[in-house]
């Protein structure tokens, strides 16, 4: 591998990794409070992308119940993004109501919640297909320009280029502009969530609920409301992630978000379950691992990600940033 290619691949790795990371942030948030995996997160991510698409006022395709339908109004893309994310947060709250809360009330096994969230994911994906078909959708080509409105002065002629050329090496390293946005957004969300969880009373309460909901309620914490809030946040973050990734690769059908589920899971486990910085670090490590597979072994790329995961777990069973906790006897 030439040094230029090496640096390019490092950049690629960070770019891929930030997609994994941004997916995983909302995912790990729920783990950090409930200690369970929400398999419907992929579906919420997908919904965020579809909601935003809908809010831009573009018509659906010819398949599905809503064939050729569109909203009577159309929102400026950044507003549509916000709306899509809010709706995704709302759906996430509904998911909590349907699949999580009743089970929590009945003291069910946490694996059962995992399975029932999976059931919801299946249902949502198929509802999407039923309504708008299996085809791909895309945002208006002005989307990137619109969300970077405050930064347009940075670019010559006020137009966002598709890719940045970083003249570190010759030829320059190329980074797609969308990826820069995704990277920056994940770092921003990372900081915000870290502050929320470590720096605020609500964050302390979240950790308490994660550990022992009954005891937390004895301290006056309204566990239901806190969990609902966490789900909203997770859905909101997931929705934003869905839109950004949708801008990067198109909304490639109802399975759009589900496809990230497995990698996302690997990422949060690698980073350490429930650790917000871990989600980002895990994403970047797996992204780098994948990008640095030598060209002739590219067929084994996916195996490499999982081999890295396997080996790291053998050395650090709690993941990279996970905390070990040995219960004293």
């Amino acid at each position, binding site marked *: 591998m030439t040094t230029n290619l090496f640096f390019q691949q490092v950049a690629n790795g960070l770019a891929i990794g930030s997609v994994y990371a941004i997916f995983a942030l909302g995912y790990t948030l729920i783990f950090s409070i409930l200690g369970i*995996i929400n*398999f419907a997160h992929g579906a919420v991510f997908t919904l965020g992308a579809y909601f935003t698409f809908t809010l831009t006022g573009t018509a659906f395709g010819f398949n599905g119940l809503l064939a050729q339908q569109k909203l009577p109004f159309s929102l400026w893309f950044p507003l549509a993004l916000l709306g899509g994310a809010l709706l995704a947060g709302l759906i996430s709250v509904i998911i909590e109501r*349907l*699949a999580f809360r*009743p*089970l929590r009330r*009945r*003291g*069910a*096994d946490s*694996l*059962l*919640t*995992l*399975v*029932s969230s*999976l*059931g*919801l*994911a*299946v*249902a*949502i*994906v*198929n*509802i999407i297909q*039923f309504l708008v078909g299996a085809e791909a959708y895309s945002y208006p080509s002005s989307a990137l320009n619109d969300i970077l409105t405050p930064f347009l002065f940075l670019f010559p002629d006020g137009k966002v280029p598709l890719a940045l050329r970083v003249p570190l090496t010759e030829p320059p390293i190329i980074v797609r502009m969308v990826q820069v946005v995704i990277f920056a957004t994940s770092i921003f969300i990372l900081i915000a969530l870290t502050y929320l969880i470590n720096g605020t009373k609500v964050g302390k309460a979240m950790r308490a609920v994660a550990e022992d909901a009954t005891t937390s309620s004895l301290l006056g914490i309204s566990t239901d409301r806190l969990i609902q809030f966490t789900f909203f946040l997770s859905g909101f973050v997931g929705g934003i992630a869905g839109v950004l990734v949708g801008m990067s690769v198109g909304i490639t059908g109802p399975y759009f978000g589900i496809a990230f589920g*497995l990698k996302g*899971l*690997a990422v949060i*486990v690698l980073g350490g*379950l429930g650790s917000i910085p871990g989600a980002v670090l895990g994403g970047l490590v797996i992204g780098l691992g994948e990008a640095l597979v030598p060209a002739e072994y590219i*067929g*084994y*790329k*996916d*195996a490499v990600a*999982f*081999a890295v*995961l*396997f080996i790291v*777990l*053998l050395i650090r*069973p*709690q*993941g990279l940033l996970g905390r070990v906790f040995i219960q004293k*006897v």
Partner: protein
Amino acid sequence: MDFFSTYGFLIVSMLFQAMLGLSLYIPLMTGQLSLASPGFYALGGYIAAILSTTVFLPEGGGKWESGTFPIIYVLIETVLAGLASALLALLIGFPSLRLRGIYLALATIAFVEIVRVLSLNLEITGKAIGIFGVPQPFINKFDYVVLALPLLIASAWFVYRLERSRVGRAFTALREDELAAAAMGVNPTTNKVLAFVLGAVLAGMVGAISAHFLNTWNARQGTFDVSILVLAYVIIGGSRTFLGPILGGLLLTALPEVLRAIAGIQGLPLFLSQFLLDGRLIIYGLLIVVAPLFYPQGLITPDLFKRRAVKTKEAGA
């Protein structure tokens, strides 16, 4: 008979899936959430598919006529698949059993993914296309019941007895509290590895027969999706008695086909039958969400039998 030619395949599939459920349940008895079963299932399938298309050829070469492949070969493949799975399970079992909960689940999924990627890249596994034209010991799919049913009964009986035996008790103790179990003299490592290997052997054997049953084998068999599906069998069915995964496997496999059959009933309003077809998976998904509300410990729990036992005792007295 018409019923068996239509539903024979489904019935036998249900039996296979029930066994996969059991294969995940065995390690879960010790509290290990291992999702490795599909990896061993895939391995077993490849062993059978490769042997039957390259080694166990008819005299004078050529292809086996449909229905003429000797059952004894299938049995040999099944045993070999079980052995190979056992060896591999030992190899990956020891290091990975330090992990717990979701971490272990993910390590085992990593194994499943690695198996998949390997089979997409290797010549011997036929890459994306896989291995096809796997010879048939039977003409009718339903006839596979002569292999599947005894295997299911044997493995169910095995697990049933296991649960009540000394080793099974040690398994359950590990699930409840590993540290306390160790302090009571139960060796965590050997027992966990044992459970892991037993589950792997069952999955491998099921894979071997399935390769014949499906006519073909490829990297799409035994993937992450299957891991999750099989987990659903165990959890929906009930994870504290061997009957849970069996029931879960039978029901969840049958469910989409049952919905399909309902849609086919004459006289349903068109929109409804259309929705039952197109929205089959919506209903399937929602049922998975709803079932746990009514059966938070799974459909079958050990208490179910106890309560009944108490009742009958009272009735007798």
